[in-house]
């Protein structure tokens, strides 16, 4: 796990640095995960403020702050909260998506490791706003250490009266359950997550009904990402104007950028939305050993690749989209010139083949096929025609799948071929002219 590279947690803004340590500002404090440290550093002060407000005022506050979901899609959080019914005829649920499965993404786990109480405080405020008395935190099962820490924090919070019945004498009750997933990427998709939480096979549900109408146990539910919810106490304390003071008009606020790969100092860098890779690279000490940048993902492997041409793309929801990719989870996987694009693309495709849930035809069969073609190419047994086949199969998967996993699966392939076609061609050089489709389509042996 990467430790925070943010400067010591006290200064709100280090002069001259583009860093804006908000979510990360306590990470380097001693025993930052403990309730004591948290309380010393403004912990649970936002909760007191929040509980004195009307729930709907909190939703309005989050709307005004312009907070957008940090789980990948960037949906405005206040709007999402507003979808929850106001009546309490059925139980309401708040579900925290801490599955963090997107390749390259490593912000939620460090946040929960270093500052679990900020998530819990956010949970109480959000649950209060949405009139939910139950909150589930669905954590990726492999993150065992993190789960223990969360359990510990939950216990501390119960003992201190921040959770449980009649929280801080407000009359508001909240129970938090930490649930360990079993390690399936698809269980990060919010409806698959809900099925998994219900003890069922984790596969995405048909929408509508949307979770706000019929989510967990067919009751009104909101699913939010860890980072989204951990931002909430800061908004309550700082106000929407303060929050909007960072980032850009449509994508306000600070964001944890996870830099990994060929950089000198990989890690979490919290900076305003709209920061560029060039700026982030500077913070991270530049490319490792000075070997030039070749390609990178702006937000995990499901977001189309960028190249060195995109160093100045503002990394916010609009900026990334305008440049042909997506902000995703701001997981910047950075590769230098020593890395073969087809090889990296093959690795990612193998991931999607492994993680496709199997529900729908395009993703299930498409990933299976794409992975085989790429494996064959990387072994030097591809043909130029395979490149066309790859692109056409991608076209038949993108936007045809049941959920966004299928869309994400083809991103590396289409963008990889778009920017680095010659690398794919070079791999096929030895097979030029060979028309592989003349081979019989009969099955061989099982793979």
């Amino acid at each position, binding site marked *: 796990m990467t430790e925070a590279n943010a400067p010591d947690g006290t200064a709100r803004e280090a002069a001259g640095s583009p860093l804006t340590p908000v979510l990360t500002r306590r990470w380097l404090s001693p025993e930052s995960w403990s309730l004591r440290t948290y309380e010393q550093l403004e912990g649970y002060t936002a909760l007191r403020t929040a509980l004195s407000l009307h729930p709907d005022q909190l939703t309005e506050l989050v709307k005004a702050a312009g907070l957008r979901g940090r789980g990948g899609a960037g949906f405005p959080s206040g709007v999402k909260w507003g979808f929850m019914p106001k009546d309490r005829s059925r139980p309401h649920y708040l579900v925290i998506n801490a599955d963090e499965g997107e390749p390259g993404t490593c912000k939620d786990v460090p946040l929960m490791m270093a500052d679990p109480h900020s998530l819990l405080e956010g949970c109480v405020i959000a649950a209060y706003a949405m009139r939910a008395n139950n909150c589930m935190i669905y954590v990726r099962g492999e993150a065992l250490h993190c789960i223990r820490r969360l359990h510990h924090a939950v216990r501390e919070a119960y003992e201190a009266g921040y959770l449980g019945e009649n929280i801080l004498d407000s009359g508001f009750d909240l129970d938090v359950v930490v649930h360990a997933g079993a390690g399936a990427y698809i269980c990060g998709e919010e409806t698959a997550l809900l099925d998994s939480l219900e003890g069922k096979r984790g596969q995405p549900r048909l929408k509508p009904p949307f979770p706000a109408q019929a989510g967990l146990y067919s009751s009104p539910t909101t699913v939010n990402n860890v980072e989204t919810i951990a931002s909430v106490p800061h908004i309550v304390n700082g106000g929407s104007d303060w929050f909007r003071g960072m980032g850009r008009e449509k994508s306000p606020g600070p964001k944890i950028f996870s830099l990994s790969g060929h950089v000198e100092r990989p890690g979490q860098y919290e900076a305003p939305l709209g920061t560029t890779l060039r700026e982030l690279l500077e913070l991270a000490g530049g490319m490792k050993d000075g070997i030039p940048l070749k390609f990178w993902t702006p937000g995990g492997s499901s977001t189309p690749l960028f190249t060195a041409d995109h160093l100045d793309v503002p990394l916010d929801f609009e900026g990334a989209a305008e440049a042909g990719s997506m902000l995703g989870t701001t997981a910047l996987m950075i590769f230098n010139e020593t890395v073969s694009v087809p090889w990296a693309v093959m690795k990612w495709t193998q991931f999607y083949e492994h*993680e496709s849930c199997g529900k729908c035809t*395009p993703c299930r069969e498409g990933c*299976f*096929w794409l992975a*085989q073609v790429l494996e064959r190419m990387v072994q030097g047994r591809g043909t130029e025609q395979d490149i066309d*086949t790859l692109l056409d199969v991608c*076209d*038949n998967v993108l936007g045809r799948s049941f959920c966004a996993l299928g869309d994400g699966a083809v991103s590396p392939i289409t963008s990889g071929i778009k920017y680095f076609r010659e690398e794919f061609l070079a791999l096929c050089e030895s097979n030029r002219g060979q028309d592989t489709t003349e081979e019989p389509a009969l*099955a061989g042996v099982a793979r």
Partner: protein
Amino acid sequence: MTVAPASGNDTAQSRPVPEGHVRLTIDGIEVDAPQGELVIRTAERLGIVIPRFCDHPLLDPAGACRQCLVEVEVNGKPMPKPAASCTTAVADGMVVRTQQTSQVADKAQQGVMELLLINHPLDCPICDKGGECPLQNQALKHGRGDSRFVDTKRTFPKPVSISSQILLDRERCVLCQRCTRFSKQIAGDPFIELLERGATQQIGTGEQQPFQSYFSGNTIQICPVGALTSAAYRFRSRPFDLVSTPGVCEHCSSGCSQRTDWRRGKVMRRLAGEDPEVNEEWNCDKGRFAFRYATASDRITRPMVRDADSGELRETSWTEALRKAADGLLNARDSRGVGVLPGGRLTREDAYAYGKFARVALGTNDIDHRARPHSNEELDFLGSSVVGTGPEDGVSYASLEAAPAVLCVAFEPEEESPIVFLRLRKAARDSGTRVFHLGQWDSPGVEKTTHIADSGSPIHSGGLLRCLPGGEAAALYELPSEVEQALGEPGSVLLLGERCSQVSGVYTAAMRLAERTGARIAWIPRRAGERGAVEAGTLPTLLPNGRPVSDSVVRSGIERAWGMSTGSLPSVPGRDIDGILAAAESGELSGLLVGGLDPADLPDPEQARRALRAAGFLVSLELRPTGVTEHADVVLPIAPTVEKSGTFLNWEGRPREFEITIEGTGAVPDCRVLDTLAVEMDVDLFTQTPQAVAAEIRRLGPNPGARPKPPDIPAEPVTEPSGDRALLASWRHLLDNGSMQHDEPNLAGTARPPVARVSHGTARRLGLEPHQPIRVSTERGTIALESEVVEIPDGVVWLPGNSGPAEVNEVLGVGHGAVVGIAAGTAPAPGTTPGQREPGGEELPAVAGNGHTSNGHGPPAHGSNGNGQAGIDGGGA
């Protein structure tokens, strides 16, 4: 397909959109569709067929296969990606472009088709589905001619058995989830599930947990590929070699429409037919798989007479057999008379012929088709409240679906009328119907109609009202107020099962309850022929169409219609089945004419056999040898259902007509045999063909007179016996030792294992270890069966009626509600079958029980404390 321009398109603008509808355009055609309709259905109504695999109109949408993608515009804005037409509901102003007008949709569909095929085996030539395979058809219609896939296909060992009947070929599976959704949503038997993920996702069952469902065959039928096949039909034929004939199932009173596929005079398979008002698109495995009894090697094809010298039956000509039969019956008639036992499996037309034969040729009302436990109270109930009703004015499947509450009284829907069971589930799942059961234990059928597991949270509704066997009548007077209230909501229904005839006072109690609450009553017999026979008049008190025997005006009308002289119809009600048998045994009757029944069906098979043995002259009309055959003087072969035409009335009273499926076998229906036999006796029945009979029934019309009076029998109190005695509760499994399931080993493998059920308390009392056999005895015999502890009242033991060694009538000579002896049995040696039947003569405590109330004697009234209170289990709104 060419798209016709919308007719009257210009005027359409001015046409108002009907209430609850929206107006949209599909491939340029403007159409109004009910709100919430799925685009794929609206398109279908326009004749635009969008290819699909996972979509099924009776299952919740899944959107899994993605074959049905179309382009959609809402509010003038194109949706960013193609939408699955099977999950997209219509909306006002929506513009839909299918593969016919959109390149994007066409390419998307081609792409999905190609993806479905990359891992599909080239099995068509050896695949059962070949020739009727949606994948094959759609691939040929919309797919590519060649394959771009040159890599390694996914393979699985094939096939795997998921039950003794169903085989699964995972390579052919397109993972549409129709089978799993059917099993979960419709049947409530989620024993098949998706396993693994991604490209290795597959259908499978739990370890050591086969696909246990009475409805499993439906998954074969709705599987859009050849992934699910049946052991019975696998590799037997190709669809294009088969002739398909619509028919009606002869197994139970649900009345399923079915399709029989046959070739060269032989039935190869049966499928569920489509009838939205009755079986929708489903049937049960008995209806689907049990048909080889009709071609069993021991089928009787030639008439037989008993040789005077050898005493053995010998085959002979129809002429001789009919002559002998006519002579014998005439003699017997003129001596002390003949009783007629037609059995409950006949068509209405055949039953009518028996009824007319009895009255006209034999001059008697001694006729009763109820070859099962029965009572006089039941007789009165049938005459006063059942006969003459139909789906229009009585309870129907549709009324079950619409009912706020349904109470099943001594009725086990899953075992006795599987389509009623499916409809109750549908009602509970979709319309919030609360289903209550008055019974003894939380059987699978009770569980599945009261706890509906589904996507989302399970629905809990209704519940079991536990009472002692025989205590059903008393319980109906003391229902929990919640149930009584629910039944008071308009449209609620009481369903009375066959077992009611073994509980004294229950019909009366149900009618009182109906009066109190306004609920309507339906009678659901088990056998397919029972309802029609009531109508046809094969009861000692009823002439055709509900005319009471005792009404002189009605009688003279029938006399005129039948061309009889005035006053020639017997005017006193006849004997019921027990009475007829007793009279035959004592010599008060000189002869018997017996249709398709087996002594073992009767409440007291031993008495039945004595009567058959003693009968002066016995004529048997049969398909295969039974316990009747060995005593018969003349045996006349008759046609099985597939070789004749006729009408079954299902429990609703709905006529289910069918034509001959297999022609030219020379087999003739009962009505024709009886007609010819009557001619030999110088009587004209005019029942030569079922069509002629049907016409006569129509001409007769409904009963012009008053209905007979309803029964008025008080409820008998029942008390819990102690010590080594228990009350017997018993009903039959759908799949059991029944003779019409003969020669179907794969089907038999899916039957529920026969076990005896007792409470914790009873088990403790007997010192039973888990699974230790329990011995259930009367003075006649003992049934030893593996025990299972369930929540059932103490002092009650439940046995399946006719499964494995548990042949309750035969071995014990008593039925539901009787007092029996119970004792712990010896644990079976490993490897032996769990239960065994033992010969009679067992020593047991003095037990006088005969649970049948067939003679109107009422159940054994041991003790005097009323036991009517029934609490609701697992209920709640």
